């Protein structure tokens, strides 16, 4: 049985100040196996973030269903942990306090929380910064805390919405490598939204390409690059081919967008 099943998923929003409804995601089907790393790419407005939020149980579905291990998802659950683009750290808590927060929310035993939080802070390389407050950290460090907070609650699925989207290119690459290193330890299922093609290919077992109006899946591309992956992968011919294929897809979308704007 696949771990996550998205069946005929439709999500609509009421447009503000009008009776019209905006279809963010229309009739999407997707299945994700246990331990799979799936990235989702697409132009802005293709509903990729909405799709992820719906798996997190934070969005009301207009149609279809999402199943986790065969059971219908009706809200957030402790088997799914979020890592969003904004690190969303509590500014009044230290690094340690922030990583503890997820554990506290999921009612881990009080005796274990501190030790466990520290273990994951060390895992993301911030052992020396446990007592720092978020405003004292760089963007990359904050994202590390964000990731540590999600990993610490021992979820089965990590839901990542452009977690490195606000970082500079270099930090982004480092973080991608780190994420793969951590992921390869226990191979938790990862659903990872990004608009960066290189990142999408580098991380994924499968890349889901989405299109706009309404948000739908255009293609799913299997990435058969060997693991563990490192910088050498980025220079391989196979990587270049996949990258080109994705670029063409997205370029098509950009072209249609341009047409739309010209009509207006």
């Amino acid at each position, binding site marked *: 049985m696949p771990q996550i099943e998205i069946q005929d998923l439709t999500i609509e929003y009421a447009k503000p100040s009008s009776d019209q409804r905006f279809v963010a995601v229309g009739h999407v089907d997707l299945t994700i196996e246990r331990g799979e790393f799936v990235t989702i790419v697409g132009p802005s407005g293709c509903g990729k973030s909405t799709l992820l939020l719906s798996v997190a149980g934070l969005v009301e579905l207009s149609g279809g269903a999402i199943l986790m291990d065969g059971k219908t998802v009706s809200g*957030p659950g402790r088997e799914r*942990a*979020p890592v969003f683009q904004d690190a*969303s750290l*509590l500014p*009044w808590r230290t690094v340690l306090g922030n990583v503890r927060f997820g554990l506290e*929310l999921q009612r881990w035993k009080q005796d274990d929380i501190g030790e466990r939080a520290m273990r994951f802070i060390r895992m993301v390389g911030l052992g020396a910064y446990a007592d720092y407050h978020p405003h004292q950290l760089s963007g990359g460090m904050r994202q590390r805390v964000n990731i540590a907070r999600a990993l610490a609650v021992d979820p089965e699925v990590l839901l990542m919405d452009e977690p490195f989207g606000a970082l500079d290119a270099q930090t982004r690459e480092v973080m991608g490598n780190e994420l793969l290193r951590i992921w390869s330890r226990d191979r938790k299922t990862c659903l990872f939204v990004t608009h960066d093609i290189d990142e999408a290919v580098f991380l994924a077992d499968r890349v889901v390409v989405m299109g706009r109006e309404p948000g739908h899946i255009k293609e799913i591309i299997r990435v058969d690059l060997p693991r563990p992956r490192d910088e050498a992968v980025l220079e391989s011919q196979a990587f270049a081919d996949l990258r080109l294929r994705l670029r063409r897809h997205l370029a098509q979308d950009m072209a249609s967008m341009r047409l739309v704007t010209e009509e207006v």
Partner: protein
Amino acid sequence: MLNTTEAANNKSAALPLPWPFSRSFAISLASVAIFFLIWQIAPALGWVNGRFTSQPSQVLVAGWTELGTATFWNAARISFTEFALGFALSLAVALPLAALMVTSKIARYMIDPPLMALYIAPSLILLPILILWLGIGMASKVAVVFLGAFFPIAVNTMAGMRQVDPKLLTMARAFGASRSRLFYSILIPSALPSLLTGIRLGIGRGVLGVIVGELYAAQAGIGYQLSTYGNSMRIDLLLVYALVVSTFGYVLTEFVRLLEVQVGKWGAK
């Protein structure tokens, strides 16, 4: 934002220490000394009638003896209890109400207009009614303090909660946070700078409420003593009690201001 600048101001003001004598400190000190000197010698020189003004030396002596009496401590205990109960009650009601108004539009539309109207009106308007309803004992004073402190706390907390980062709420919900958990783990800490501002304003109104309430109708308490000593022309004792009240209010307010500065540091980018 406000708190960050306030914190920054405090920092720069604190850097040149007032000791040893900076110019501004020396001037302040001199003006206070001159005031006490004139007050001390004015009755002796016949400028004013000492029966109405007393003298700093008399106040000092009166204070020394009065602060050791059971009369004083009994009055202080009663007034403080009224203040503490009323204040705790206003916190207990204002915080959940503020959260309700921030999370529910209907609640906001229902409660906002009367809340703002009562916030602007001095709550002492209701004092005669409260005395009628609750008698001249402690209950009516507790109610006055509650009304005085409630509105600044509720209004400021609400303003603070409206500033909450929605991304923090989304994150906490994704981790499975309950509504009550969102309230005390996200909403309250987010609103803490404004909440403290509300508390600081509430302290002033609460102290005023206790004293005026006791002056108006009471059987005991600091305000009652003030009224008694006023009637019997004990200006020295009256001033001792006045000093106690203002010291209490000042220390408490400054303490909260210090907390505000600490809390403001979180937001420092």
